[in-house]
């Protein structure tokens, strides 16, 4: 398989995995390992105050686990509703985790978690000027995508459907149009994938990678589901490279007509 390059960094796996909502830290660790992913997403949240043992502080023990697993982190600005919040969160993330990568979320609607695309472009502009490598969580709107590229984004992350919904590719035509419009920009489908078949479909369409969380973490068996997604994403990418056949209206015999016996 060809390698994917994100902000001049080569990554082996085309599967980016979220770290939230697993039944236990152990299942998170196993899911990440079996998925063979190179990149996991993490959030920033309030640390527990007061004196307690290092491992009793949620953030400290979580960070120890991520470092033990040894994967690259992509911090997010999840839950930010304003440009100011997102920019501040990004700066905090960069210092904490020692990476200028940031999954930029500026949420516009608290129910659908639809991105605020105007705030997104503004925050992306500010953060790019501040030296960040911005991975914007966006829609399939081509105008917004163009603006994000203009302000310096080198990767785009369109949603398939709302975060955590598992609805899959809710607008295939829009995703196809986005892929066709930006053939040379790494495009990562982020959010809404519920099943491995949907991830495979996105990869067959030529998307460069898939980012998901809930579909693995909330599966009956998260570890096996992580493996299933890993295989589906790889299969979809192989299929894209192999160039799928065009659909044909009607049936077409695959066995040759010539040489067919006359038996009746």
């Amino acid at each position, binding site marked *: 398989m060809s390698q994917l390059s994100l902000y001049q960094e080569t990554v082996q796996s085309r599967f980016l995995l979220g770290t939230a909502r697993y039944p236990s830290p152990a299942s998170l660790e196993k899911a990440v390992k079996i998925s063979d992913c190179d990149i996991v997403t993490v959030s920033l949240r309030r640390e527990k*105050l007061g004196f307690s043992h290092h491992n009793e502080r949620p*953030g400290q023990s979580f960070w120890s686990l991520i470092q033990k697993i040894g994967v690259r982190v992509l911090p997010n600005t999840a839950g930010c509703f304003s440009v*100011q919040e997102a920019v501040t969160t990004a700066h905090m993330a960069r210092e*904490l985790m020692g990476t200028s990568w940031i999954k930029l979320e500026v949420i516009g609607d608290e129910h659908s978690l639809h991105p605020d695309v105007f705030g997104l472009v503004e925050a992306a502009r500010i953060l790019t000027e501040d030296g960040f490598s911005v991975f914007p969580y966006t829609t399939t709107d081509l105008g917004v995508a163009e603006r994000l590229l203009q302000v310096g984004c080198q990767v785009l992350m369109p949603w398939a459907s709302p*975060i955590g919904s598992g609805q899959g590719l809710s607008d295939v035509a829009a995703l196809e149009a986005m892929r066709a419009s930006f053939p040379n920009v790494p495009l990562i489908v982020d959010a809404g994938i519920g099943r491995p078949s949907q991830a495979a479909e996105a990869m067959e369409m030529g998307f460069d990678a898939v980012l998901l969380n809930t579909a693995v973490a909330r599966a009956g068996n998260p570890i096996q589901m992580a493996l299933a997604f890993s295989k589906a994403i790889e299969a979809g990418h192989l299929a894209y490279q192999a160039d799928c056949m065009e659909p044909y209206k009607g049936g077409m015999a695959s066995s040759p007509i010539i040489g067919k016996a006359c038996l009746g």
Partner: protein
Amino acid sequence: MTILHVNGETRPLSPTLTELLKELGLGDAVVATALNGHFVAADDRDVATLRSGDAIEILAPLQGG
């Protein structure tokens, strides 16, 4: 009244962010800080003077999608 709002909790006033983190047992923790909505880098915590009513956020890496 001299108080701080730290991660949404009311705390007594500390002179600086560095002092506050020490008092909270977070002097060596992997945390990032913000004062009244603005990022304060670790190197600037010594000079980040706190005043009554200030809102401080002390954040750590946690599970996220």
